[in-house]
């Protein structure tokens, strides 16, 4: 177990190192300079600016400084957002994004489990068909389309929730729904397939023969056993939520990481792009590692050290 963990952490660090290196050199490969009107600047001004940002040093030294800074959380200074350190920008915005992501995950997974179980228990009835249609639609309708529709019809027309901005819980409801529908549909399909499988197995027959109630069977036997494979979906969900947050936060103007990422892409704010890129990669790598560990703990049938070979 320990050997496996060490190996995984090593690969994790290797991945992040590669991402950092690739990002850094791609930035340096770009044509042009960071200064918007270099023609008007004197040679002395450029020299002073270069010294200030450390751009006069050789490339390898800049690279080492960049890597060294990253080790203690220094991601450089933003070109755009009034020269604030990138780490500060991220820290001040991560709360909203994290809250939204966690809420959407809980909303999607819990409701998905409920819908999936209902579909599996009522297999091949109209309830099952309805749930299947809903999950196909949920999977197919892009979350940004849904977000705009929710914003217009529920917030503007009906006035049930605030249209945009970030305040109390009521501000989070619509973005959470828009963001969570994707995971919801995926979970429902997954749980339905898994539970239909479990419901056909021998121990369910035994439980039925013992005279257990229908809900007892679903709750005690079927659900628990079909939940385990769901853990493997946490990684893909995290990616979906990160991607989704960019566009949902923009539509609902929520001050989060995703919204800032889009802004920094559109304004060529390279240090911020690099910072958020590293944050996203680190987040995903950590989530993948965590899910593998959790999977090994809750389902002892899976050998961690094996890894397929």
């Amino acid at each position: 177990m320990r050997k496996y963990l060490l190996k995984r952490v090593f690969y994790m660090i290797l991945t992040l190192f590669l991402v950092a290196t690739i990002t850094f050199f791609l930035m340096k490969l770009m044509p042009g300079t960071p200064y918007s009107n270099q023609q008007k600047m004197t040679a002395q001004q450029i020299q002073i600016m270069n010294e200030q940002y450390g751009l006069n040093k050789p490339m390898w030294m800049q690279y080492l400084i960049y890597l060294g800074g990253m080790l203690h959380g220094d991601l450089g200074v933003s070109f755009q957002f009034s020269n604030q350190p990138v780490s500060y920008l991220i820290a001040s915005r991560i709360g909203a994004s994290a809250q939204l992501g966690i809420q959407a995950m809980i909303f999607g997974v819990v409701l998905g489990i409920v819908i999936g179980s209902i579909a599996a228990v009522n297999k091949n009835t109209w309830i099952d068909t309805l749930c299947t249609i809903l999950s196909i639609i949920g999977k197919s309708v892009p979350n940004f389309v849904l977000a705009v529709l929710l914003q217009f019809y529920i917030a503007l027309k009906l006035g049930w929730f605030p249209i945009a901005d970030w305040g109390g819980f009521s501000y989070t409801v619509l973005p959470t729904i828009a963001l969570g529908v994707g995971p919801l549909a995926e979970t429902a399909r997954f749980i339905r397939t898994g539970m239909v499988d479990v419901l056909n197995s021998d121990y369910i027959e035994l439980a039925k023969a013992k005279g257990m109630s229908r809900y007892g069977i679903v709750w005690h036997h079927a659900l628990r056993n079909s939940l385990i494979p769901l853990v493997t979906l946490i990684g893909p969900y995290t990616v979906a939520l990160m991607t989704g947050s960019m566009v949902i936060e923009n539509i609902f103007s929520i001050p989060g990481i995703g919204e800032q990422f889009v802004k920094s892409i559109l304004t060529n704010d390279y240090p911020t792009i690099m910072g958020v890129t590293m944050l996203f990669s680190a987040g995903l790598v950590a989530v993948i590692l965590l899910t593998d560990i959790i999977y090994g703990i809750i389902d002892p049938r899976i050998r961690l050290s094996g890894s397929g070979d």
Partner: protein
Amino acid sequence: MEEKLKLGPENFEALPKAEELDNEKIAAPSLTFVQDAWRRLKMNKGALISFIIIVLMIIISFGSTPFINHDSLVKSAPKYANLPAKIPGVPINGLNGKLKVSGEWVDEYKQNNVPDNKYFVLGTDYLGHSLAERIIYGTKISLIVALVATFFDLTLGVAYGIVSGWRGGRVDNVMQRIIEIISSIPSLVIVVLMLIVLKPGMTSIIAAIAISSWTTMARMIRAETLQLKSQEYVLAARTLGESPWKIAWKHLVPNLSSIIIIQTMYTIPTAIFFEAFLSFIGIGISAPQTSLGVLLNDGQKNFQFLPYQMWYPAIVLCVLMIAFNLLGDGLRDAFDPKTRR
């Protein structure tokens, strides 16, 4: 003690000839793998309708290439800007050139002095472009992206998976670690990096898809190849001295075909969504080109007053996604009846 039975030919009776043949008769016609899958797919109504919709969309969008090209996309006609849909002979509000303005249906075509014989089936956008033309062009972009993703899935993904599974050992180990690293970088990050190096547009989207889309396929193909490798017929082919290339092509690929088809059908909707998403936030396709994502973004700005500008592209995009998802499910059931429940 032992009584011998005296049996002569006269004790036996010949069975009628026809009955004899019937016993050996095969009731169903023999079907190849593809025919069998097609037969099962035809029984699935949703998948069949989806298949027809996709074929129609492909024909319309690619067939439109001579009529809707770069020239017709740049040409704007501000005098026809923001006209709602008008189909002659359809007296339904919203499709007859009328638009709801502060609660009342107003004939926009009359108000803007549009000639009687001029009409736009799906209305126009803020520059007077025909929305129908733009949607067809956008659908073409989505389908091209789908095609590119499929291409990389089929070439890179399948080849990588087979080589990794077939060679095994150290080669496999290294190849799997590479996949692990690629797939732990969010594809969004890859796109952004591509956007920084190349300029926003089709090239960077395709590059990003080329890098990130094939890893799942490669993993599944590898796992299946590992199993197929130990099958008797592969062993026989090896013993007879068949070259690995020929084994891969003649024995592995045909047996992997169901996985390949199913996995491709899952890659396509993801790729279409990805393009629409990038264009929607403004880092994908850019003017004068257009795509469903760009149209959605434009339409969203005026949604309160000109809802049709967002609804039409949204409906087309959703129909496209639903069709591919349903067809994917149908193909999975058709090629792999074991998973069907």
